[in-house]
């Protein structure tokens, strides 16, 4: 038992020394979360603003100018040009100069008095986010006239937004980013762990020593747990201070939930490491796991909107469960007890992964 601990300590110390001396890898530990956080935090923004549009005002009336200005002050769109004919506007859309055009017909004033539809938007529908932003302008009220030109649509329901009342994307993205970055770095580091020993020729020596498979597997992942924790501090810390992401849950819960996920990802990486024969293969397999983890875990698109088959894949990924856990804890102040199914799943995944990896890692060269 004691010698088993000494053996594991030997491997852990060796891994940490190697990690500390591999400057690029060590740099990546810090740079990946830092850069990704800033990129995603600033660039991914689902609150669409400043869509470039053109205006075709065939009425040439005061009402037309007032309406154009009212549309402009919503800040959803930014009027970059005006055209004389619809055809010109259509061409500008085709060329990609503008994303949409507002067409105000020559009988605009008449339409206002008759309370008919005032004009038409023609929209480049290829980006659904832009489409829905323009669609929202469909019912925009005009208050700059002496009278209200369109009666307000009566509401059926009131909607109250909890947890993210200002609808800022960063609030949802930053905790989700934890899952993506941890998936990326944790699986990548450990998937290379055994393969590297094999590639560099260290494995043949290692398997003639008394170290047991399970000891080796445990000792290989322990150093990276610390790496994962460092990354969590970077992402949540910066997310909190730069993007004002509220941290409503307890830090201890965040740590425990994250540890579960880190362990699951590391175990998955180890399994890859016992399958791959070169570091390149390990890398490819990591990407194979990483892509669905970004796309299907609920990080980018809501789980609820996925087809059933995609939901199954999604359920199998540790990242999905972690997204639920970490968003639950950070944003809604939940704890692992509330999210026991996801927590249990991660725990089971870790154990199964470790067992599979140690069984697959045979201490023989056959």
């Amino acid at each position, binding site marked *: 038992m004691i*010698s088993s601990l*000494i*053996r594991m*300590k*030997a*491997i852990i*110390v*060796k891994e940490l*020394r*190697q990690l500390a*001396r*591999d400057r690029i890898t060590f740099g990546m530990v810090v740079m990946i979360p830092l850069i990704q956080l800033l990129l995603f935090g600033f660039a991914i923004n689902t609150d669409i603003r400043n869509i470039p549009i053109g205006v075709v005002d065939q009425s040439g009336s005061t009402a037309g100018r007032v309406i154009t200005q009212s549309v402009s002050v919503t800040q959803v769109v930014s009027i970059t040009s005006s055209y004389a004919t619809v055809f010109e506007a259509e061409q500008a859309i085709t060329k990609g100069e503008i994303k949409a055009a507002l067409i105000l017909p020559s009988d605009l004033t008449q339409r206002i008095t008759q309370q008919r539809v005032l004009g038409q938007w023609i929209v480049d529908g290829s980006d659904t986010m832009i489409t829905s932003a323009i669609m929202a302008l469909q019912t925009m009220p005009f208050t700059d006239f002496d009278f209200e030109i369109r009666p307000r649509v009566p509401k059926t329901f009131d909607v109250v937004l909890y947890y993210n009342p200002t609808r800022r994307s960063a609030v949802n993205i930053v905790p989700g980013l934890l899952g993506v970055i941890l998936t990326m770095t944790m699986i990548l580091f450990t998937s290379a762990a055994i393969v590297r020993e094999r590639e*560099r*020729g*260290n*494995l*043949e*020596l*290692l*398997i*003639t*020593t*008394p*170290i047991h498979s399970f000891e080796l597997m445990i000792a290989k992942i322990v150093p990276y747990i610390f790496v994962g924790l460092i990354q969590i501090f970077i992402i949540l810390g910066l997310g909190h201070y730069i993007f004002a992401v509220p941290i409503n849950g307890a830090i201890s819960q965040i740590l425990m939930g994250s540890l579960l996920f880190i362990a699951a990802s590391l175990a998955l990486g180890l399994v890859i490491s016992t399958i791959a024969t070169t570091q390149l293969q390990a890398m490819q397999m990591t990407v194979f796991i990483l892509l669905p983890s970004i796309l299907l875990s609920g990080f980018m698109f809501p789980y609820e909107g996925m087809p059933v088959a995609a939901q199954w894949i999604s359920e199998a990924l540790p990242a999905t469960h972690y997204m639920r856990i970490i968003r639950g804890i950070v944003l809604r102040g939940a704890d692992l007890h509330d999210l026991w199914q996801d927590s249990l799943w991660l725990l089971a995944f870790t154990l199964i992964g470790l067992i599979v990896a140690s069984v697959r890692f045979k*201490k*023989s*060269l*056959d």
Partner: protein
Amino acid sequence: MTKYAIEAHNIVKKFGDFTALNDISLEVPTGKIYGFLGPNGCGKSTMIRVLTGLMNANEGSVTVLDLNIPKQADLLRLKIGYMTQKFSLYDDLSTRENLQFIGEIFGLSGTQLSDRINEQLQCYQLDQLSNQRVGSMSGGQKQRLSLAAATMHNPSLLFLDEPTSAVDPQSRREFWETLFDLCDQGTTILVTTHYMDEAERCHTLGIMEAGKMRAIGTPETLMSQLGAYVIEITTQHSRALKERLLAKPEVKSAAQVGLSLRVLIDKSISEPISWLTNNFSELSSGDLKETRANLEDVFVTVTGEGRQ
């Protein structure tokens, strides 16, 4: 202590259709240096891997240090040292850190460990290099470190797989001195090599070729029991003569050494020199003399069948 450190009987190891080890039996006496001599790819490394339990043989039985292999391979690992053909310690760790790692893996700790590390550093002249990263060290230094690592836990049996393939002759000599020191302390050593001068230093030698054991014995016995005469012929036009000599079935080998040809003639011919002069008229004026067999002659004589 048992008489034999290693006993292997009728080992067969196949990789698919390829038979890497074909019915090999051997007995390695305790406290001696046993050598496997053979060309690259003849199965030396595979044999070591089978004996250490790293690979399972398809047929045959292996007993190493009274342990049944591969069943008790885990117990065996505590008692053996293994030096792989390719350098297999960590390039990005220092000499001391590598030894520390190996020592801890074998269960050493505390002052016992640091004492042993210092002892090994001194013994293998690595004390000046103790804090140097291994990646920047020379072949000879790496080899000394490998041996120091393999002997950290005082194994009673040492497997060395082509230990001197990346070292200069001077380092090789010193390396063998160390091996004899270890042997003196009671360690059994099994070493593979394709160098004749190294093979000659072993107490017992097994000559392997194409997965078969062609001959086993002490180098002296093997040389004295050589089934051929060794004739040195000094003559001009030796290149052309060599081809014609080899055309005769009685000539087992002809190799140019400097200015002369070293010719092995089958023992079935009673007077090799006169046979040569009778058959090759140009040799009547040449300088022919019978000489003592060396290990290369033995190697050439016993192998050759499977050579391609």
